[in-house]
């Protein structure tokens, strides 16, 4: 977005390309943000500036109608228990079937969805999930760095449950069964959050 020079300030001693945005610009953005925000209510993390924007996601049928609400809300399982690669890799990772079977070899084995899961396991075939959250191939998005910033090294942010941070981009998954895309995940969505939270603005950080 082209922003007039008067909003830009040049701070000495700062790395090139990461100049701090002036107060005026911050105000300009928050005004803009308040106009466009519709449902940012779930981000209740103090001192965090979540990304803005929404998307009305389609219903994506999955091979197994996986209920996030039962797992994440009712049973309070931490997102990273299943999506374990999020803290150390580019991808959060759909959990391997062995992770599901870790519990479901004994829990709720009579339920039809569990039976279906067990079938996959016995056949040595993982379920072919349909991808809901995707970014183009030319985008390098790494979960690890975002978790580092907002979960592990989050200066001054008060994160009670990591799911609040995941909600920044994935929406309130606790209320969903199968995942739905409720954020646009386009470049503007990413860039606005980066600008607000002093993320890198170098093109080559994300474009590969």
């Amino acid at each position: 977005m082209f922003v007039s020079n008067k909003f830009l300030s040049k701070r000495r001693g700062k790395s090139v390309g990461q100049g701090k945005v002036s107060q005026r610009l911050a105000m300009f953005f928050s005004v803009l943000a308040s106009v466009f925000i519709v449902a940012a209510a779930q981000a209740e993390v103090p001192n965090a500036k979540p990304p803005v924007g929404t998307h009305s996601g389609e219903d994506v049928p999955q091979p197994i109608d996986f209920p996030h609400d039962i797992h994440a809300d009712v049973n309070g399982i931490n997102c990273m228990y299943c999506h374990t690669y999020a803290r150390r890799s580019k991808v959060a990772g759909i959990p391997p079937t062995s992770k599901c079977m870790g519990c479901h070899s004994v829990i709720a084995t009579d339920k039809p969805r569990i039976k279906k899961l067990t079938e996959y396991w016995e056949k040595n075939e993982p379920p072919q999930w349909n991808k809901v959250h995707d970014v183009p191939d030319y985008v390098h998005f790494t979960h690890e760095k975002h978790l580092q910033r907002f979960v592990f090294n989050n200066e001054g942010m008060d994160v009670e449950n990591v799911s609040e941070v995941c909600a920044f981009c994935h929406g309130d998954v606790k209320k969903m069964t199968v995942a739905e895309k409720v954020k646009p995940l386009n470049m503007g969505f990413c860039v606005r959050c980066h600008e607000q939270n002093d993320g890198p603005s170098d093109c080559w950080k994300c474009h590969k």
Partner: protein
Amino acid sequence: MSGSDINRRDFLKFMGLGGVGAATLSGCDMPTTVTLEEGKEKVVAYLAPEEYAIPGIGVTFASTCQQCPSGCGVHGRVREGRVLKLEGNPDALNGKGLCQMGQASLQGHYNPDRITQPMARKNGALVPVSWEDAWKLMQEKASGATQGRSAWFTGTVSGHQSVLLAALNDAWGSKDHYVYEAINNAVGEAVNKSVLGDAAPAYRLDKAKAVLSFGADFLGTWVSPVHFSREYAKFRTGDRGVLIQVEPKMTLTGGSADLWVAARPGTEGVVALGIANVLLSKNQVDGKKLPQVALDVISQYSADKVTEVSGVPGDTLVRIAKYLKERSPSLVLSGESAHGHANGYQNAMAAMMLNVLLGNVGETIEASNSMVFGELKAKHGNSKAMLDFAAAADAGKYDVVFFMGANPVYTAPVHLGMAEKIAKVPFKVALSMFPDETTMSADLVLPLSSPYEEWATSVSPYQPKEAAISMSQPLMKPLSAETKSLGDILLSMLKYQGVKGYDGFDDYYAYLRSELNAMPGSVKAGKDNDAFWSAAVQKGFIKAPTKSGTLKVSVGDVKQGGYQAGGDYPMHLVPTSNQTMYDGRNANLPWLQEAPDQITKIFWDSWVEIHPKTAAKLGVKEGDFVRVESDQGAIEAQVYIYKGVHVDAVAVPMGRGHEEYGRYAKGNGVNPLKILSPAVDEKSGELATHATRVRISKTGRSEELPRLGGSEVQVGRRLVSTVSADVFRRTEGV
């Protein structure tokens, strides 16, 4: 622009066409690689991954490259179950470096023309069959082969596969295992054996201060190029060594020479004698290390005589002698362009004589330590094997022949009639990854797995000091379920044959585990079986105990013949090997087809190298097609003119001109090996590849040469700046 499907390029296109509907245009011309709509792409998780398998982060596994006999250790980067990139194994003999052949070997693994199913010949054509049918056919035709009527014709084999092959041949009562390599150092090895008592001594380039190489392309294709490149780097730093290369056409090593000398092909031995003469007469080198007989021969080779025979001027001889005397210790090597003559052995002997004269034996030529596990050592190929095989096949000696890792139908000269002789064998089985010429002439084709899909061990032929048994492990699941490793095929055949001791193994992996378990305690260094196996596979090799060797010195006859003029065929054909195509095996790898030749910078096609004087005489310019004709046939290719080839020589690279071998190789270039004359090295029986005489003529056709564009001279720009070695010594030398 949030939420829009239109990208920048489509957007501009639409505007240009007055805003035609997006749907029509985005569908064509612009392949949709990006599907962001929810639910359109699949994401498949692992089933039960290992702890270290983290999607998005690569895991590195060690294995071994088999693209050439050097057998360098590799580290393969594997992501999500696919091997993506190979690097050298820093702990192996080649260090962390890997040549372009090794890098491109990955394209061999993923090659679209790989054979994925056994094939059998029915009504003249090869058709896919099941393994069951393949085994049945083998049972019918091969197992009944009476004693001694079967043979294996392979490339270099080593490790436990070699053991199984020997056991199988034994079980069949056959002594015939022909090991063939088109690019080999057989003549050199014969001389080494005779003079030093060690066929493959350690060449200490890193200790040498002067290297005189008679055509040994040690940076390119000779013996173990990646290892020697590492040693070369040491050779050039500190007290910088001087490299002198004597050859008829500039090889990669010649490209780095301080002094490149073009000797008339076949006269390298005479040049060596000339240098010895100068050393003894002018440089006060003591001749006491040589027998009197040799000294007598040397004394006959005055500078004038040498110049007359070889074309090398007297002051060049003096200059070389000076380097050898002053930069001590030196190292004298010889390679294919010196060996590939009827007097090849003589040339190599003269080069070795220089080493003895200069006292290099024990300094830069050291005894190699041989591995105690003799049965695992490499059976390294030569070309005599092909000649012997051709004779035997012609005589109808075999009922069944197995081919693996060699392509004699392609590399054999036409005069051998290899295709016809092989056709005489009633049943031919080819174990192969690719549809090369030999494979396509077989009666039964068994698809092999690639080196990155199989369990195997291998031992490099060149193991100077530390012996290592290289491990190969699968870097991913086999691309086709129907391919099998050589080890598995041999094991199945042994089990079927009822050979004792192999029944207990389900597969080759189990056999290898058992063999490694059985290794002596000194090798396992106190580890239990599982820990030892893990360590071996993780490191990529097992250090094997060695017996230290010794070198004797006994110089043979250094007499050299005279030079024969060519008559009708005045020029010398120099069929060169280079890393890009090697002996033809790399022609199906697109990266290497597109990689410009190291010296001429030509890609995707063959060429003929001639000297500007030859070009002037002929009246040709770069890109003109010329006809190179021997008494066996003719080839036509475009001309490349430069001063890196002897005036009497015509250099044509080997490796292209395939008639099969897949989409990248077929119909591309010409094969100079076809028109070789029937000459052999008298003493060793090796095919004399550089002994062919040809004549060259214009065809009148011309086309732009497929060469990397741009100027071949710097036109005054400081692009590659050169300083003298004295300056180097002053600023960085020791």
